[in-house]
């Protein structure tokens, strides 16, 4: 269970980005953070992971306030996959082992290796283990970065636009894979995502950020024409095709 209460964040220059953010998500939930550019979506993710420090509020995961944890303790609870590709020239297997960084004292243990092996298999990356990351395609790189985050054994997985560099097929494959692993391991995923239809397909909770505040939150019912019009300033129809909810923009 993840509960965010009264979170406020402003940059040192004084501009307030997030105002009194509160919401909660059950363990194993797949939560989409939606909103227009500059609404504070990425800022919100970074506040959960000490990359930015909120001025007030709390982020409780199973009763522990993440904001009071040290960086290395936090890294055992929360994993983050940044937007865009990593330029690191490391092998895929080393990149996965890097996910064990919060647990590594001096060397790598058999347990670290075992977890990396399992995740490698689960994400279907076995055949790429010894390749250098910068030789892989965008979809493969994204899978490796997600695998690295899973190797951290987090309770919460933060994804900042995980599909922005992927083609259609890879978008569905990567998100489907992550959702599967998260459900299996009971990981709560918080995903910043621009594509509403992709969000509707894979997420079970939705949160609209608008002007730095929570505009609406809930299940798929909150993704309706009224909310879309207010948040994005654009008309849209919401239909059901083959039992799947889809958003059709009507500019």
């Amino acid at each position: 269970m993840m509960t965010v209460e009264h979170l406020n964040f402003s940059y040192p220059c004084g501009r307030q980005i997030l105002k009194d953010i509160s919401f909660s998500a059950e363990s194993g939930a797949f939560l989409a953070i939606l909103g227009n550019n500059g609404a504070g979506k990425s800022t919100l993710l970074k506040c959960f992971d000490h990359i930015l420090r909120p001025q007030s509020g709390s982020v409780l995961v199973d009763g522990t306030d993440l904001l009071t944890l040290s960086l290395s303790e936090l890294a055992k609870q929360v994993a983050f996959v940044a937007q865009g590709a990593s330029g690191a020239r490391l092998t895929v297997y080393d990149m996965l082992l890097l996910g064990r960084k919060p647990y590594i004292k001096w060397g790598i243990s058999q347990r670290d290796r075992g977890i990396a092996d399992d995740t490698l298999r689960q994400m279907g990356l076995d055949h790429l283990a010894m390749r250098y990351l910068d030789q892989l395609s965008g979809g493969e790189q994204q899978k490796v970065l997600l695998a690295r985050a899973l190797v951290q054994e987090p309770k919460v997985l933060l994804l900042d636009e995980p599909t922005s560099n992927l083609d259609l097929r890879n978008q569905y494959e990567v998100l489907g894979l992550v959702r599967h692993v998260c459900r299996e391991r009971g990981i709560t995923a918080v995903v910043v995502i621009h594509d509403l239809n992709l969000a509707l397909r894979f997420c079970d909770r939705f949160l609209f950020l608008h002007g730095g505040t929570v505009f609406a939150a809930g299940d798929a019912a909150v993704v309706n024409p009224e909310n879309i019009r207010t948040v994005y300033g654009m008309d849209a129809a919401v239909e059901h095709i083959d039992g799947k909810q889809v958003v059709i923009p009507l500019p």
Partner: protein
Amino acid sequence: MEHKHPRSDAAAPVSYDLFLRRKWTALAALLAVLIALVLFSLTTGSSGITLRQVLETVLGRGTAQTEAIVFRVRLPRVATAVVVGAALALSGCAMQNVLHNPLASASTLGVSQGAAFGAALAIIALDAGVQNVANAGTAITISSPGTVTVCAFAGGLATTVFVLALSRLRGVSPATMILAGVALSSMFTGATTLLQYFADDVQVATVVYWTFGDLGRPGWREIAMIGLTSLAALLFFLWNRWNYNALESGAATAKSLGVNVELLTYASMAACTLIAAMSVAFVGVISFVGLVAPHMIRRFTGNDYRFLIPGSALGGSILLLLGDLVSKSILSPIVLPIGAITSFLGAPLFLWMLFKGRERL
């Protein structure tokens, strides 16, 4: 929490063990090259002692004459090349990581020149100057290495603080950082020249000697100082090897993996500045070794700092020993200044790497 992880069908781990073994083998090969170069360097010189005589002397069975040559001339020179080369390469390796700048090194950022100015100030203005005035030129030694080191470190640190402040500004490209380094270098070089203008003859001799770079000057005391500090820095860098690997993926990712990025950056830069400043204080400004050595090693190890850190140290020692051999052999028996030689050999090498492997730099 303890679950079992079957390792039976582990295709990846087996090849990973092989992969690791290959990297260790590469490091062992570098070490072998270094040892061979050390032995070869010990036998080259104007007095014509053979390797056998050198080894006998080292084992304590030499004559008074060979002992004097080996322990007071050749061994210190070789040891200096090894520790200074390693120090410069280590500092370049860590700087390139924490500044996210493949062109960073003590000499390209102006840290070395800042340290040189600090050391010159100590020698000329603070009289940390010269012993053995009687036979100046052959036996110029720094009378208080402590003062010189502190001043060199202060000079280098001034540049480092400036570079770090610059790196915190948004949108400063790696190239801009290096251009700022060029500006700082020329400022410090100008200041050093001004100091020389007001110095007396012996002081000028000392300062000039060492702006050329001279591997023959440090005594055992200075070698031990550089060696021990570099060893401490090497252990610090190795301790942080996974942190550097994490930082390769960007500051945000590193933080999410539990790395205290600010602390790592400041501590690493301080360590880099200290070992580079120490080298400059006792040997003079030596360019390019710190920049080129880590890039040469990257070709074998990728950006894996578990291997890149020790590899860079070995590579730096090898490069500087090679430079020393060249400086001794081109116009033998005249020994050319090592600073000029590394610049002459390092610059084309660096340009070649720049154009050949642009995508990786």
